[in-house]
């Protein structure tokens, strides 16, 4: 009996570790095939590129675990980035501008949550609606032209380094990972997120208050998207209305590659980090190997499909 238990646990572990094994294999292959791959500079560059997607994907993990989906993350990123840059252009300080951007992201996320819980709109449709709406708002606000960042020290947020080596966005990513990981596994909030995704009715009948939970879950996703928006605006030194187009799909891909079930109720945050890294290193490797960007898309699509097929529950 003990033997059987260990087997089932080992099988679960193996299934979970699939993405990790994939990442390690990719690492080895790229190290062998490209001499430029395994250098500190290259690895840190990739981590910096990954950080924006990872920040969004962490929030997305909570949403997907609860049985939902958030398509509006890229649009929230664009609008909050634009508002932050716009406030600074109007002469406001960094703290107020960035704070307003983050608060806006949180509020927009809560609106998504309200549409899903009180409005009883399917998450896919609700966030598709806000995605379209917010894209329009951003275009109107920016009038379609980029808003340059005028404050030099703001640029450090996304462009700075720690010890002249590690890019700050990478630090933000790891801080967010630790905080979100703890939120998911160590708090009642995280437990209830998984319970709602596993069986919303059972959670409700156990006294879990579904509506406030959903406001918080989508609010968290909005907040992290806004944070990604502020960091990206800082790094690019300008806010663009079209920023973050398609980021929702990258974030969903990272979550799913990491082994979190799209049906909700099953998953982990570490997997999402690994999934984001997989996508990042794959992009980087294909670039280093000189694969044309046309083929890169094809390879990425195939990798995602294979990963999901392998991960499929029996």
């Amino acid at each position, binding site marked *: *009996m*003990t*033997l*059987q*238990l260990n*087997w089932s646990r080992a099988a679960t572990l193996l299934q979970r570790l699939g993405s990790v094994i994939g990442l390690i294999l990719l690492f080895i292959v790229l190290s062998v095939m490209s001499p430029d791959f395994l250098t500190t500079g290259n690895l840190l560059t990739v981590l910096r590129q990954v950080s924006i997607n990872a920040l969004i994907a962490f929030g997305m993990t909570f949403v997907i675990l609860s049985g939902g989906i958030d398509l509006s993350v890229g649009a929230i990123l664009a609008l909050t980035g634009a508002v932050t840059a716009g406030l600074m252009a109007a002469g406001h300080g960094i703290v107020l501008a960035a704070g307003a951007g983050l608060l806006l992201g949180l509020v927009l996320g809560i609106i998504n949550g309200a549409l899903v819980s009180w409005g009883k709109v399917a998450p896919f449709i609700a966030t598709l609606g806000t995605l379209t709406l917010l894209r329009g708002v951003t275009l109107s606000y920016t009038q379609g032209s980029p808003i340059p960042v005028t404050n030099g020290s703001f640029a450090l947020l996304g462009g700075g380094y720690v010890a002249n080596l590690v890019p700050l966005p990478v630090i933000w990513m790891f801080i967010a990972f630790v905080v979100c990981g703890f939120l998911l596994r*160590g*708090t*009642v*909030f995280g*437990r209830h997120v*998984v*319970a709602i995704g*596993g*069986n919303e*009715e*059972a*959670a*409700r*009948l*156990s*006294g*879990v*208050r579904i509506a406030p939970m959903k406001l918080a879950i989508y609010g968290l996703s909005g907040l992290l998207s806004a944070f990604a928006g502020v960091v990206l605006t800082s790094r690019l030194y300008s806010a663009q209305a079209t920023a973050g187009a398609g980021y929702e799909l990258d974030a969903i891909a990272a979550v799913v590659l990491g082994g979190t079930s799209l049906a909700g*109720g*099953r998953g982990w945050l570490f997997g999402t980090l690994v999934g984001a890294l997989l996508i990042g290193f794959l992009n980087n490797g294909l670039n280093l190997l000189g694969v044309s960007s046309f083929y890169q898309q094809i390879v990425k699509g195939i990798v995602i499909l294979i990963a999901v097929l392998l991960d499929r529950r029996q």
Partner: protein
Amino acid sequence: MSTPLVTMRDIHKAFGPVKVLEGVDFELLPGEVHALMGENGAGKSTLMKILTGIYAPDSGTVEVDGKAVSITTPADAEKYGIAIIHQELNLIPALSIADNLFLGREIQRFGLLDHRAMTKRALEWLARVGMERLDPTTKIERLSVGQQQMVEIARALGQNARVLIMDEPTAALTEHETNVLFKLIRDLRDQGTGIVYVSHRMEEIFALCDRISILRDGKFVGTRPVPGLAFDEVVKMMVGRTLDARFPTRTPNIGAVRLKVDHVTGGIVQDVSFELHAGEVLGVAGLLGAGRTEMARLLFGLDKLEHGTVTLDGKVITPKSPSEAIHSGFGFVTEDRKAQGLVLDMSLRENVSLPRVPAHAGLIDRPGEKKQTRGLIDALKIRTRDMELDVRALSGGNQQKVVLAKWLALKPRVLILDEPTRGVDVGGKAEIYHIINQLAEQGVAILMISSELPEVLAMSDRILVMHEGRATGLLEAHGATQEAVMTAATGGK
């Protein structure tokens, strides 16, 4: 003696290291209703899945009409006239009766669906199950569960099934629907159909079946003719020992009024009043659709209370949501544990602490949570190797205990139990009764909704009977008879 329709000999089946069937024999004669019994996990479903081609046996032989056959796909089973009526009905709600009857074998004319021919044939098939009054173009979703079951049987018969396997067919039926079903089963039997009847309901088996085959832990215990067979004998064969008592006794310890329900109205529930004392078990009897679950949902804040008051320990409360009701001291074991009681992909530990996670300022107290779970596993004798295992892997009886454990952790003042032993085997039932008794002895006020009359009569102190949303009787359980309860439940005086 006629040739058996089906003979299964020395069937073995293992899933990995787990042996599910070890040398099981089973024989079905034409024109008999043959009960297949055993506790949950005894191997009944696996045996039937082998017969219907869903699983392949590791060894053993299957004969149909005395000839060895190999049934490896559900299509093979259909070819040999073997059909199964599942517990969860397999009909598509948005399609019509006729569409469902001919799903996958539609009658066509020039490549188009021939609706007229299908409707005509559907009527013939419905007539065979006494349902010719149904319009074949009616959508399945507009039928009652009992009617849907008849459609399923009609489909099986239309495909020339001679062997019908029925898995807990009466679980969701009303008394009347059950009687209609039994009459049909007897008619089919008289026409030579062989029926395998899988059920936990002893009363039904004794009323309906000709022979019983019993499995225990994957082994074949024996086949007995029903006439002359004693109830205790069957239980003994199933559990391998004599149960001390089917219903354990309790020392009544009834205290003051805990819950007072006055003229409660909402949804189909009309003007229901009763008092529930601390330490009392108040049974709630009634037919399906009598409003028993709906009344519980009102008390638990799931549906809107339109009129009336609920008083708990002298304080008027109006629960607006489950979380408020739980806060006031209610617990609710729902009738459908998989859909409403458990998060199947979460561990036993996580399920038990769902209503209240041991935590400080929102941070989970992991050691405290493990200690609480360990205590409840011991107190309820939940059989599991590991509290970290998903509850999906547990047997029905153990899952039900996990649902009970959820509420016990909260020490509720009023515990509502809705069909607490549905789908639980005999041994598990006795253990759950024991837990209910213990809780009552500790002073918990218990409202027990149940469709099993023997259970209501034996476990309750008093019995509230409902009919069409109203309370039609409040009986002292001591001295009450099934007839008295049924009279009130059917609205008679």
